[in-house]
């Protein structure tokens, strides 16, 4: 797995758009869960 093998063309295709959306969802779901859990704890500070 050299650098040249992992080098993309930089062009945007429909499949890469779908992949980007899927990966953003995969990142955002656990992140939003973590933010929600954290905010749940923050509520205790103001109650």
């Amino acid at each position, binding site marked *: 797995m050299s650098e040249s093998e992992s*080098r993309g063309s930089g062009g945007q295709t429909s499949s890469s758009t779908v992949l980007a959306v899927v990966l953003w969802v995969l990142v955002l779901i656990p992140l939003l869960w*973590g933010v929600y859990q*954290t905010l749940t*704890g923050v509520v*205790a500070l103001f109650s």
Partner: protein
Amino acid sequence: MFKNPLVERFGTGLTPIGIIFSIGIVMLGLSAAILGTWVERAGPRTAMFTAALCWSGGFFIGALGVATTQLWLVYLGYGFLGGIGLGIGYISPVSTLIKWFPDRPGLATGLAIMGFGGGALIASPLSSTLLEAYASNPVDAIVPAFLTLGAVYLVAMMVGAFVVRLPAEGWRSEGWTPPTEEETGSLQTTADVSASSAIRTPQFWLLWTVLFCNVTAGIGVLEQASPMIQDFFSVEAAAAAGFVGLLSLANMAGRIGWSSTSDYIGRKPTYIMYLGVGAVMYFLLASFGSASLALFLLVSIVILSFYGGGFATIPAYLKDMFGVAQVGAIHGRLLTAWSAAGVAGPLIINAIADYQTAAGRTGADLYTLSLFIMVGVLIVGFVANLLVRPVDSRFHMEREEGREREASVSGRPAGSET
């Protein structure tokens, strides 16, 4: 999350368990410094693949250590191997994203470093959930929790490793043309400096000092956040945990927010703000922090947003000073400042807290001295940032290559003075 269960499991004090995390932070800096050049050469995919193996492998070996009550195995796994995984994994997306966003390096590094802050927001409640789910006593849940986390991290990081791409040579955003030497500010170079040359420049060590001071000061609040708010305002432990969560959010938001802002106001002014306004905030916290909860929260949030912003903006600052060619390797070397602050910061803070307690001080008075020391630390960083000037052209790669060519023609070693 694991600190107290580990203390109980090994029947030891906080210090031997704290060493696990100290080893991790030291290895983070050392591996980033030593392997930074390799990461640049091998590319992000190989680097992320290696980081995934080390980081998740650290959890598996750590689980074995906990299961067999061998603390040295936890040092080796979670601390040593996991720390190497952290170091490689931390720097590998940074230079990749800078190459994808040549017009917005602050946004790029903010996105990359925010991932590290965001990961903490997920890992903390996830670890807590696992410890509760696997056993009624958290001590009995450490091993399955470590194994689960190791497996989850392995899958998540492998997905990242297999989809990561570098842009094609010369790729640029649509409609954007690289600025000329005249268009860029004096602190934005269009040349490149190699990692080995960069560490010979005063600019590298000034930025090392800037990062060290910013991190040390941030740790000053983070390390004491929970006991500090309880001593200042006599709040319950649950509310104190909520305060720590609030600081984590501020830390993450500062990474993407301030780093992106630095694309518009410049890197040096951004650090003037982090360190100058930060020093004022620490002064306010030390002098008037106990007067109002609202003031205490507001000031703490700003401080932690600057702490996160300092982490995220530094690779973009390095890119401005040293160019993009070896920014990942240079960033790796600079992260030794984080390791040094990660070890020195808590030592200073805890020593002062012990001293104040022994002196019979209570409540907010316990923290006044350490907060004022942090004001001094930030002023040192502020001055270091003011001293940053453009890198001398003799360090630029083209010039060096030229000198090497000249040396090969004349038979004189490159770099030898006449």
